[in-house]
């Protein structure tokens, strides 16, 4: 394990950014943060959760896929992707790291989504143990340990230092390039922090939330549950939950006419939107109840059915704090699981 004194933190960042693009969480407005490309002097935020998850860096909100030039009856397809370079995402929380596994199982199965695959290949993830998990956190429900996140390098931040532990070849390689700004450490402090986090995790208000009643092949149990009616009652049909969610990955592909051609781009889409499934021939999900149900059934039942029981929720809690009507997957799980919210 390597140690970097907090006073040297920016030297560490400068070092990394000298050979790779570096993204760190930066405070935007009071208590809010988002991942930004590091520039000298930027301060890493301690805010627990960025407004948007780091999925943006692998699956951006909008992304140009290709361009077309047309002349007369002819079409030319131009794949104008540039050579990819390595990049480092520093300070990814355990829940968000896990979300990459959820996304991988969609984008990296045949036929591979090469746009995403390239970024995964070139992205190095430095995760950050959660010193102070929030009341909205429920990663434990999905077997995620915020005190020992996955990632290429795991980082523990104590009062005076960062402790960096490489977990993969990519991580070891990165750490070896940071020898100047780090020193060898026995990691006792990190271990101490890890234990502290474990104690805190056990005390969180959602610590005992269980997902056991959901999962593989449970479509019939839940699809026609009367609770959907009440739960979806005041859903606005906006896409907030979807877009702040680290595991939501639905997208749309659209064409945009530019000055000298056509740009085909993809952008995030949401099953909460009324047009999501609309066809000229009809609309299979007519009401918000059906669209609301689709999102949660997908996370709790459909996805696990296709992915060995893995849930498509990592318990980051963003939907809890962001939903305009404060409806969220925890309330859905409690209601469907028969836990009265008393």
């Amino acid at each position, binding site marked *: 394990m390597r140690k970097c004194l907090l006073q040297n933190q920016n030297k560490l960042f400068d070092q990394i950014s000298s050979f790779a693009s570096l993204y760190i969480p930066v405070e935007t407005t009071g208590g809010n943060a988002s991942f930004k490309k590091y520039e000298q002097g930027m301060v890493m935020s301690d805010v627990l959760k960025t407004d948007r998850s780091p999925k943006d860096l692998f699956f951006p909100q909008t992304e140009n896929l290709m361009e*077309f030039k047309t002349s007369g009856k002819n079409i030319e397809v131009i794949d104008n992707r540039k050579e990819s370079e390595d990049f480092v995402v520093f300070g990814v929380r355990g829940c968000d790291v896990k979300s990459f596994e959820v996304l991988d199982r969609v984008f990296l*199965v045949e*036929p591979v989504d090469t746009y995403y695959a390239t970024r995964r290949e070139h992205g190095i993830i430095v995760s950050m143990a959660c010193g102070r998990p929030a009341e909205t956190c429920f990663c434990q429900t999905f077997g995620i340990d915020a005190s020992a996140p996955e990632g290429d390098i795991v980082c523990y931040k104590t009062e005076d230092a960062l402790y960096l532990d490489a977990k993969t070849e990519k991580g070891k390689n990165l750490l070896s390039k940071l020898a100047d700004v780090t020193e060898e450490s026995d990691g006792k402090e990190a271990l101490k922090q890890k234990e502290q986090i474990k104690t805190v995790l056990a005390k969180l208000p959602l610590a005992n939330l269980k997902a056991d009643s959901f999962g593989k092949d449970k*479509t019939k149990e839940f699809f026609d549950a009367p609770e959907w009616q009440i739960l979806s009652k005041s859903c606005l049909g906006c896409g907030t939950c979807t877009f702040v969610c680290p595991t939501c990955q639905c997208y749309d592909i659209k*064409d945009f006419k530019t000055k000298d051609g056509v740009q085909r781009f993809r952008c995030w889409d949401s099953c909460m939107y009324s047009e999501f499934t609309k*066809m000229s021939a009809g609309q299979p999900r007519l009401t918000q109840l059906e669209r609301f149900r689709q999102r949660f059934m997908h996370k709790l039942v459909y996805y696990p059915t296709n992915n060995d029981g893995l849930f498509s929720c990592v318990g980051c809690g963003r939907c809890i704090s962001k939903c305009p009507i404060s409806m969220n997957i925890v309330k859905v799980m409690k209601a469907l699981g028969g836990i009265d919210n008393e």
Partner: protein
Amino acid sequence: MNNINEALIPAVCEIVAIRQDTPDVKTFRVLTPDGKKPFIHKPGQCAMLSMPGVGEALFSITSSPTNKEYIEFSIKKCGCVTEWLHAAEVGQQITVRGPYGNGFPVETEFKGKDMLFIAGGIGLAPVRSVINYVRDNRANYGKVDIVYGSRSKDDLVFFEEIINEWKNDPTVNVHLTIDREQEGWDGHVGFVPSYVKELGFDSNKTAVLCGPPIMIKFTLQGLAELGFSNEQVFTTLELRMKCGIGKCGRCNVGSKYVCKDGPVFRMDQLEELPDEY
């Protein structure tokens, strides 16, 4: 054709022939710019066609894989992309990616079976691919019956082919029907579901069903009355799709993605899915 690793990037192809089948259905013959067949597909599979700036949409491939020369799409005018295609001329390039989906189990479950094809309107487009595949591999299948209906005689897609080829094929029984009486039509008049019941098929056949939802609903009831079980009936679904490769999430029904796990489903498999298609 296109590298499987670049699933979203299409290949450029060319419309080499256009046939007006009905007032609102045209069949487009498509080849690569150097005159080759764009890809090898299975009956029932689909492909994404697009015109940059207009949009991309998924269409079933209506030609049989046994056709070594070209692929064909029969397309009904009903939206942005289809309207543009209907206005296109021969020689127009379009982009194509695919083929996508599972296709009909012609080499497994269908083999050796008596086949009953039932289609309504443009629903014959994907079924035509199987019918011609079966005709071209005739020894592998039992008796073949085709029930096809449309609003009127003019709305019968592939009319020439049905009359000149299928009807003249002694190994195939073709039963045509139209919704209402029409001058110059001496065939059956009535809706497909009741015609199927009238014809009263043996329930040992494997049925392939494709058409408007209402037709499917009532035909299924009819087939059940004739003694068909869900395991003997196949259909193909149509949902809104964008990627065609099981990722964009649009055609997700239950744990299935229609573009990847479908579009062909056996009725008992469909019964397992939530009723959202």
